[in-house]
């Protein structure tokens, strides 16, 4: 049980940080609506936060490569751009 928790703890911690970050930025997005300029800035911040989160998590686990960072960058840019274009 304690061994399982030992392995799960960092996973829970990193996903908690992701969920809190995303939820916080979503709340800011909600609060700033309908100021489009501010909302577009939040969509950029969301993307930057996600790339940083992914890079830090993979750096800490020692499982990082340029392709992994590129994958996070791709997902983040795609999400931010979709939001940006709809706003």
């Amino acid at each position, binding site marked *: 049980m304690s061994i399982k928790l030992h392995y799960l703890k960092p996973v829970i911690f990193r996903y908690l940080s992701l969920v809190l970050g995303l939820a916080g930025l979503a709340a800011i997005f*909600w609060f700033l609506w309908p100021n489009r300029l501010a909302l577009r800035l939040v969509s950029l911040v969301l993307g930057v936060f*996600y790339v940083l*989160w992914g890079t830090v*998590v993979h750096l800490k686990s020692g499982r990082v490569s340029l392709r992994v960072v590129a994958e996070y960058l*791709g997902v983040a840019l*795609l*999400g931010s751009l979709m939001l940006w*274009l*709809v706003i």
Partner: protein
Amino acid sequence: MLAFFETLAHLFQPRHSNAHRPKVLHPEAFAFYLVLLIWAAGVMAWLPKIAPGLPQVLGFSSAITTEQVIDQTNQARRSQGLEPLVINDLLTAAAVSKGADMLDKQYWAHISPSGKQPWEFMAEVGYYYRVAGENLARDFSNTPDMIQAWLNSPTHRANLLNNRYSEIGVAVINGKLGDYETTVVVQMFGTPKIEGSNSEILTDDITAVASQSATEVSQAVSGTSSTVDISSLKPAILASAVLPVSQLNRSQPVLSPKLIFEALSISAVILILSALICDWIWVSHLARSERLVGENLAHILYLLTIAGLIACYRNGLIF
């Protein structure tokens, strides 16, 4: 047929040919989606310039039209057993004038910062009413959401479903309010005055709320107010922003950039989420392969957040 399934498997199933990661989740695939979205945005921005005959298709930031607003208002009235409202050109002119005034003087309220009442816009165009009312909305991307928001609000609902009104005028205007582009909708109701009768306004709860909002907006954009001469409103400016009643059947915006991007975004999110879920299930239950890739659950959470925000953004403001 076999080649088709092979391609499908290559795109969605982790296997040797795609380095044990679905091809649609490779960084190159994300670069492709980005290029596709940017290309679509570019085409939609430039198309009205290179093909001037298509401004009605792509020139609107929202899909709201005056015809839809009137149709759906009457639909709501019919469902309650009320008579449908008849379009009145003078009320429409008053609504256009009110919308233009809000954008010109930068306020968002029933009463302008200088104290001008909605009824004065009606009087200016020569509409003399026995009873009158006004509903306002902004930032909605489509008509059904806006009508529903009005129906959910007791005061707007009372206007929309009032059996004492017989006529309607609607203006849908795209413009800049404060720091951002928006679509303002003005809906004016009325019943023409009969000789010898007194005028009556049915929206008596409006005044207090409207004054507060007018002050807030005028403070936020101080220094932008100026006087407006209704007769000086340029038809060219209004024509690009409004669908006049006389043109309702000729120039309907078929699509809006916002709707196209919503559709493209939802399709992209569904495609990527499906691939991520397939990959997650495949790798965690069916195959054990050591690979250096991003975390599927994190991608899913991020994309769901984006999809949720896009869905939430569809809502607007009513007043």
